[in-house]
């Protein structure tokens, strides 16, 4: 990765939905300009329905922007862009595949040979603390394990940008905290470029380099916070608290 170029760049990004019945145009994203540097852990926070998920889907290539330009690594975004990985809130694991087979999926589609695949997948199984569960089906895994499989499944394909759509939202707070720490340790090793959408301000501040706050719909960038606090971070530290308070005030103003 060229450190001088940007991982991601939005210019004048705008998205409108057309209501099926009335043909009425519903603006979801008004106009976003933003530049994301490589290796950044970016969190996006905003009120419900503001368009965060839509934004992610556009970056993943699952939806198209109405206006504006998106560049990844200096090149225009393509449909279902293969340079981007997406981790869903609902895990979206393939129920008929075991944990290890789910993880192997992205390698199968790239025609990687069987034994190579298996080796790589087992490394991730170990790295993600899933030993002993690789042959289990998703219905036999806990929520936390399922999400770890989902993350492994995406990371094994080494996408340029990793998108995460409220991945820990459906987990209890204990599992959530441990997964946050887990995610941090993974990221710390690999230095992926991550866009992390969440509702949870604590989570955002704990994990991110930058926190981007969106307005209610139609989404605009309200403010970008730089979180310069050195890692590993203490959730209870005064610096974290300060930024937390600021963001919360900002959000409640709307």
């Amino acid at each position, binding site marked *: 990765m060229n450190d001088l170029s940007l991982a991601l760049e939005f210019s004048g990004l705008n998205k409108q939905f057309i209501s099926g019945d009335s043909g009425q145009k519903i603006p979801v994203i008004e106009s976003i300009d933003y530049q994301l540097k490589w290796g950044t852990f970016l969190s996006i926070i905003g009120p419900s329905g503001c368009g965060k998920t839509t934004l992610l889907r556009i970056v*993943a*290539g*699952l939806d198209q922007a109405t206006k504006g330009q998106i560049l990844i690594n200096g090149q225009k975004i393509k449909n*279902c862009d*293969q340079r*981007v*990985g*997406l981790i*869903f809130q*609902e895990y*979206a694991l*393939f*129920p*008929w*595949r075991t944990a290890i087979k789910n993880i192997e*999926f*992205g390698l*199968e*589609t*790239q025609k990687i040979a069987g034994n190579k695949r298996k080796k790589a997948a087992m490394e991730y199984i170990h790295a993600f603390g899933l030993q002993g569960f690789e042959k289990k*089906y*998703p*219905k036999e895994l806990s929520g936390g394990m399922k999400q770890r499989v989902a993350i492994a*499944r*995406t990371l094994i*394909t080494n996408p340029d940008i990793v998108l995460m759509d409220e991945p820990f939202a459906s987990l209890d707070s204990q599992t959530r905290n441990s997964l946050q720490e887990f995610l941090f340790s993974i990221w710390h090793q690999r230095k992926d470029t991550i866009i992390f959408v969440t509702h949870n301000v604590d989570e955002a501040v704990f994990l991110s380099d930058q926190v981007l706050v969106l307005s209610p719909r139609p989404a605009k960038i309200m403010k970008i916070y730089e979180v310069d606090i050195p890692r590993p971070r203490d959730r209870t530290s005064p610096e974290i608290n300060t930024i937390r308070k600021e963001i919360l005030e900002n959000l409640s103003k709307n």
Partner: protein
Amino acid sequence: MKLTQFLLPIVLIICWQTASLLQIVPTYKFPSPLQIIYGFKDLIVIGMPPGHHLQYHILYSLYRVFWGYITAIILAIPLGILLGWSNRLRLLLQPILELIRPIPPLAWIPIAILWFGIGIKSAAFIIFLGAFFPILLNTISGVLSIEHILIEAARTLHASTKDIFFKILIPGSIPSILTGMRIGVGIGWMTLVAAEFTGVKQGYGLGYMIMTARDIHRPDEILAGMFLIGLIGFLIDIGLRLVERKLVQWK
């Protein structure tokens, strides 16, 4: 299956045999259980028509069902996956399919004989028609039941359309497909017997056997044959259920 489940049938059989012995029920209309057992023996030893033994009737019937059923599977599953995937194709073909579906397979018999002559092809065709629609419709609904998010996840993981078909649509719809296959073989088996009423070239087949027993007035053999048909259908269903259980562990 618990033993208590057999209690009711046993009680009924005892009542039935008693009623026959006491002549409450005329045995030429309603043979007693004992007579039916003797009927079985005659079917195996003497045969119906005489010389055509039960074992061969069973084999021929299974053979005809097999061919009709395999054809149904080969055509219905790929077509079902295609129609489940493509809204446009589905809307295009739906009126034609919905028009043909309500026609009972047996109504096709005269046309089948016209097209294929009297023999295994026309019988297999009738069975094909009976099995085709349940398999097709269940395959389509199986594909439609796959959560859209799984397809999007696959796309983000570099899946081509071919990958989606083989790695998502087919495995994801297997539970529905198997249900359709189970229903299809049940209907195919039921249709077979009636299909064999109308002309069976080799002189073998369970439906043909029952028809002949009717012509020669052996109601005991008719009932023995009917019971056997039910039993075989039951066993086939159990077989498929076992396959289902193995393949759908993940649900």
